[in-house]
């Protein structure tokens, strides 16, 4: 597609359940990023992929969070045993290259609500 696509756009789940969030980057973009945005707050870096490797996982808040990427394509962010504090909008971005100050192109986010 023309832009970064994220699904689902909204997800309501019960505490303790696992969720998967998907990101389709812009075709040809080698770098992919996941951010978390809690209500009324800024963006919190989670993880960065260059191709299908993740040189920077420093932002993942706990071992309940994991992410993978297939080649230079789709990425999945998985949250296991969700907690209420996981409620946030999860934003995905891609860029043409990750080794320089390139523009980030963002999806519209996946809004996660944990009851």
């Amino acid at each position, binding site marked *: 597609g023309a*832009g*970064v696509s994220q699904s689902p756009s909204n997800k309501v789940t019960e505490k303790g359940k696992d969720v998967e969030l998907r990101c389709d980057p812009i075709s040809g973009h080698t*770098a992919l*990023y996941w*951010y978390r945005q809690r209500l009324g*707050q*800024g*963006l919190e*870096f989670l993880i*960065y992929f260059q191709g299908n490797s993740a*040189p*920077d996982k420093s932002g993942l808040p706990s071992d309940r969070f994991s992410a993978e990427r297939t080649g230079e394509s789709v990425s999945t962010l998985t949250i296991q045993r969700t907690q209420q504090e996981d409620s946030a909008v999860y*934003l995905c*971005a891609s860029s043409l290259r*990750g*080794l*320089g*100050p390139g*523009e*980030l192109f*963002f*999806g*519209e*986010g996946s809004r996660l609500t944990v009851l």
Partner: protein
Amino acid sequence: AQSVTQLDSHVSVSEGTPVLLRCNYSSSYSPSLFWYVQHPNKGLQLLLKYTSAATLVKGINGFEAEFKKSETSFHLTKPSAHMSDAAEYFCVVSFNTGGFKTIFGAGTRLFVKA
């Protein structure tokens, strides 16, 4: 340590008056600097970027920003606010430290009054 600080969490202006959103950064490296805008329930969109060329950078929708190294600032300005400018604005700093790092400011919400 690298950091970015947006000095105002909220800014309110009247339509037709100037806009100033303030951003300061701290870096041991030569930074690249960006401003992104986020309209309600929308993704983030790049407004403008500085990457060591001209220190005065012009962006979309009449916004511009000036990189001032001596003040470690990258404030965003617009001469005349429009109602459609009401949104959240993020100052972003990017450092090449042998790996690529991007840090987002906490954001400034701009309100525009009729």
